[in-house]
Every structure is written in structure tokens, then in C-alpha cells.
């Protein structure tokens, strides 16, 4: 009896751990966009959550059209994902040109307010142009046969989200460390004037950052929407707040920091719910944030390393 209880609690622990990791990787995927933009122009892009929401809506519309025309399965998923990425990237690009570029030399508060304004604008735009209701989102991701034994612990969609987050983090790190454009981005982040003097087109670099960040948001939006199964115009706000918290926790501006922050936040929430009460989920998450910021004001992996962007 004792051993059975013991096995039970071990299993319960593993379930909470995996649940926390999934939730954490969702946060991390969105947090990457925040942290990249902050790294390069020190702006908290509050409209990032809305780009995420736009990605999900685009995918929903595309998949609806394709399903009506008789397509099915993974082809719909990949087309919808691709269109969502392109569309969201275009939004990210335009957003930067309209709302942030004119304010680049303004006091730091101005682009922040502009970002909040864009966030509210996009939310209401989607609400009016689409709907204020919750919309069902098709579940594209398969439940793998080989997982059927352990799918009470981790299902197919959760595994895919986890793997995507890790892949995206690795790709981003390679992009920033070893490619030409990555070097140029880092240079822009460190010193805009110097970068300009050595012939880097900093406007292009900043646009590229927004495009990459928005593409990531779109990927996150589609994956999470298909995992959760419902979207509305407001999903970007709460996801955005949590992802922003994750980015700050890990050290805003740092890419591994965003992933680490996301995972820690997800795990804290999961364990707080599992062992204490879900009433205190947010209390624990934000108490942890405060504690970490007291000990390390720049986040877990922030600033002390020069790896920005």
C-alpha cells in the first residue's frame, strides 16, 4: 500500500513536471519575441501579444477556407502556419514602421505608450472585423500512436510544442551567433551609431528583428490555438503578460533567458497548483518574480552576459 502511494505521488510529480514544461514552453515561445525586440531597441513591444493573436486568427481563416475546398490533415496545418507567419511578419514590419520608427529618438516613454496604443487598436480591430465570440480552432496536431501509453502524462500536441520551442531557441542562437545578419543585429544592439559608421543598415536590422519576432509569435499562436482549441480577440493580452513576465524573469534581452524564464514560470505555476491550490497560482508565480528580481535585478541570465538581441 505504501509503495503504491509512493508510485502514485511520483507519477503525479512527473505529470505536473511535464504539464509545467509544456506551459513553460508556450510562454517561452512568445517571450522570445519580446526579448529580441527589447534586445535591439530597448522597447517593450506590448503589441507582441496581439501579433500572436493575429497569427492564430489568420490560421483559423486559412484553415476554414481550405477545409471548405476539401483539403484535410497536415497540408492544411502547414499552409495555415505558413500564411500566418507571412501575414504576422508583415504586421510586425508595418507596426514598427508606423508606431515605433517615428519615435526612435523620442523619450523612452513615448514608444512604450505607442506600443500600448497599438495593442489596444489591434485587439479592437480584430474584435470588430472578426467577432467578439470565442471561436473553435481545429486540432491539427495528431495524438501519436506510440504515445498512447503515456498520453495521460504528455500528449502529441504538448510534445510538439516542447520540441518546437527547443528547436526555435537553437536556430535563433545559431542565427545570432554565426550568421552575417546575426552579427549585424548584435552590432546594432550594442551601438547604433558605430554600426551605422561601419556600413550596417540599422533600419533593415531593426525591421528584420520585428519580422523574426512576429514570425515566432505566429508559430506560437497557431500551435497554442490548436492545442487549446479556442481563440478570441483577447487571448494575446493574457499570454502576452505572462510571456513578458517570463522574459523579465530570465533577463530581458537574452534569448536563453527567455526560454529559461518561461520554463521556470510554467513549472512554478504547475507545482503551485498541484501542491497548494490553483487559487494561488499567480501569487506564487509573481512572488518568485519579485524574489528573483531582488537577488538578480537584471533577471537570471540578463545583461551581465553581453549576448543581446
Amino acid at each position: 500500500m505504501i509503495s503504491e502511494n509512493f508510485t502514485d505521488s511520483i507519477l503525479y510529480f512527473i505529470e505536473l513536471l511535464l504539464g509545467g514544461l509544456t506551459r513553460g514552453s508556450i510562454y517561452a515561445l512568445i517571450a522570445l519575441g519580446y526579448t529580441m525586440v527589447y534586445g535591439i531597441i530597448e522597447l517593450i513591444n506590448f503589441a507582441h501579444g496581439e501579433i500572436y493573436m493575429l497569427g492564430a486568427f489568420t490560421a483559423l481563416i486559412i484553415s476554414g477556407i481550405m477545409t471548405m475546398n476539401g483539403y484535410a490533415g497536415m497540408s492544411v496545418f502547414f499552409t495555415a502556419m505558413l500564411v500566418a507567419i507571412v501575414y504576422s511578419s508583415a504586421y510586425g514590419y508595418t507596426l514598427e514602421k508606423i508606431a515605433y520608427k517615428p519615435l526612435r529618438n523620442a523619450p523612452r516613454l513615448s514608444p512604450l505608450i505607442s506600443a500600448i496604443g497599438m495593442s489596444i487598436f489591434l485587439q479592437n480591430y480584430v474584435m470588430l472585423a472578426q467577432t467578439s465570440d470565442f471561436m473553435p480552432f481545429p486540432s491539427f496536431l495528431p495524438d501519436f500512436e506510440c504515445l498512447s501509453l503515456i498520453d495521460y502524462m504528455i500528449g502529441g500536441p504538448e510534445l510538439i510544442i516542447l520540441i518546437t520551442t527547443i528547436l526555435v531557441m537553437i536556430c535563433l542562437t545559431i542565427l545570432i551567433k554565426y550568421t552575417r545578419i546575426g552579427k549585424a543585429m548584435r552590432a546594432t544592439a550594442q551601438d547604433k551609431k558605430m554600426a551605422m559608421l561601419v556600413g550596417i543598415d540599422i533600419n533593415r536590422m531593426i525591421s528584420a528583428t520585428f519580422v523574426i519576432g512576429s514570425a515566432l509569435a505566429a508559430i506560437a499562436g497557431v500551435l497554442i490555438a490548436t492545442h487549446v482549441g479556442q481563440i478570441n480577440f483577447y487571448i494575446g493580452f493574457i499570454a502576452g503578460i505572462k510571456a513578458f513576465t517570463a522574459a523579465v524573469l530570465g533577463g530581458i534581452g537574452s534569448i536563453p533567458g527567455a526560454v529559461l524564464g518561461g520554463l521556470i514560470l510554467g513549472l512554478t505555476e504547475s507545482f503551485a497548483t498541484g501542491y497548494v491550490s490553483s487559487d494561488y497560482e499567480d501569487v506564487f508565480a509573481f512572488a518568485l518574480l519579485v524574489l528573483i528580481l531582488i537577488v538578480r535585478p537584471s533577471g537570471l541570465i540578463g545583461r551581465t552576459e553581453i549576448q543581446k538581441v
Partner: protein
Amino acid sequence: MRHIFKLISILSIFILCANAIADDTINLGVAGAHSGDLASYGLPSVKAAELVVEAINAKGGVLGKKVVIWAEDDACKPELATNTATRLVSKGVHVVMGHICSGATKAALGIYKDMNIVTMSPSATNPGLTQSGNYPNFYRTIASDDAQARLEVDFALSTLKIKKIAVIHDKGDYGKGLAEYARKFIVTSGIAKVVLYEGITPGAVDYSAVIRKIKRSKAGAVIFGGYHPEASKLVSGMRKKRMDTIFISDDGVKDDTFIKVAKEYAEGVYASGPKDVSVHPLTKKATNDHQQKFGKDPGAFFLNAYSATQALLNAIEKAGTTKYEALRKALQNEFVETPLGKIRFDKKGDALGVGFSMYQVQNGKYVEVEK
């Protein structure tokens, strides 16, 4: 001295009048907000009473006597309601239909209780009015605030015979209030246990940790207080984890959007919702009569007030007298056919068969289930 004589003589005339009325008519008091901000809640009840009384008087009245309406205004204010009640009592009313607001009703009830006058409200939903047992003279034709929780718990315990229940809410006024009532009812029932009581954050990306907790608690059913977005996330999360835990929820979930979003996972979910009375022939008749007489659609609580008036007059007819104890017995034992259905009252004064029914998602639609 002359003044006092004048006063006494005027008063005695009034008293004589009251007595005279009391003898050969049935006096129905109608109290509620007939002026002020909340008049729109009170005025429909006067119209409902007029319609019912007109129909009954045309058929020869109650016990061979004509029914007379005495309408008094309390503006939904407790401090005015006591005056209203005193005025009605001094006019010799036999029964009162009112008051409208819970606060005003409570203030007035003490006076009616002392005078042994049966009072029936069409709209006061405060649970304590009936459940405290302080007002045995009080009845109502509307479900109390905790009726949904009561129905959900009764359904889980008696119909589904569940022993372990997880109560989850969304931390909001509506959801949490309902969950607290549900928890209280389960605990006091003594036949089932609340194995989990948790609040979840609306809008969170997923509820996997709570779902695992529900699974670990080995609950046979989940009673959820809240709205459909959270409910559909919970239900689909549970079904994806291959849990067949029964899901019971409320009016906030009894919405077609829930089925649209949760899709196949919605199947089998129970939700309580207001009883559909719009197809009832008496409802149609009452609404039509109102339109003919007043030229517009009836207002709030019209059907409840209509039913309350019918129930009161029916009780007098069946009891054969206006005596308090006989009336109470008649209200509790005699069914009466009203727009709200065939109703009688329980010992505490709540109408049986009024308010909410249980629905279940079957083949993508909410279907009313029998108890």
C-alpha cells in the same frame, strides 16, 4: 377638544370602511416598486394582478366574493416597505402579492408575519427569505439565488449517485458564489464529499495542472461555476487525458457557443438553465391578454407575478377561507396550473417546479433531462 373628536370620528369611519370591505370581498394587496428607479420591476406585477383578478371576477370571483386589488408603493426601499405593509394591513388585506426587491420584502415580512398574512413575492431571490425559516408566511414564485447550485448538487447526488465531487470555479462573483453554495449543499447533505475545491484563473493558456489534480482526487464528477470559455478548456483537457469524469455546470455554460467550441468533447456535459416556459399555453394566453389590454409586451417578472396571483387566489378557493393556517396548507398541498407550469410550494415557501432544469449535451444539442 373638538379637533380630537373630529379626528376620532374620521378614523372610526375609516375603520368601518375597512371592516365593511373585509366582509364581502377578498382583498389582495399588491406591494412593490411602483415608482422610482426600479418601477419597471414592480409595475408589471400590478398589471399581472389586474389581468388575473379581472378574469377571476368575470367568473364569479373567489368563494363567491369579488376580488379587490390594493396596490401600494414601496419604491424598493426597506425603510418605506414597513409603511407600505402597515398601510396594507390597515386596509384589511387577506393576502399580499409582493414585495419586489429582497431588501424591501424582508423589511415588510415581519409586519405581515405578526398579522398572519400570507405573502408571495414574484421576484425576491435572496436565499435567506425562505431558508432561514424566520418567515413561515412567505412564499415566492421565483427560484432563489442558490437554486442552480441546489439543482446541480441534487442531480449529482440523487440522480447520478456520486460520492466524490470536485467543485471548481472561475473566481468571479457568479461562478464563485455558485461554487460556494454547491460546496455547502454537498457538505450538509452528508452523503457525498467535496474532494477538491479550487478557483482557476480565467483566460490562462491551459488548465492541465488543475485537471491532473481532479484526476488525482478521484472525483466522480466536477461541478463547475463559471462561464463557457473556461468550461470548454477544462472539459476538452479532461477528455484528452482520457478522463470520463462527469462534468456539471451552470447557466453560464448552457450556451451553444460552448458546444461549438468544445465540439465532440461537449458530449454528455450537464448544465442547468432556466426552464423554457415560452411554449406553455397559459404563458401565451397571459402575454396575449397583456398585449390586448395594455398594447405592449409585458415587463420583468410578469409571469412570476401572474403565477403568484393565481396561486394565492387558488389557495383561498381551495382552503374555502382566508385563515392563515388553512391557506398555508393549501399552498403546500394543492397544485395550481400557472404560466410557469404546475406548481405548489415546499415547507419553506419556495415554489416546486419553478426555475431551473438540467440539460445535457446530446448529439451536439442541449436536451432537457428528467430527474
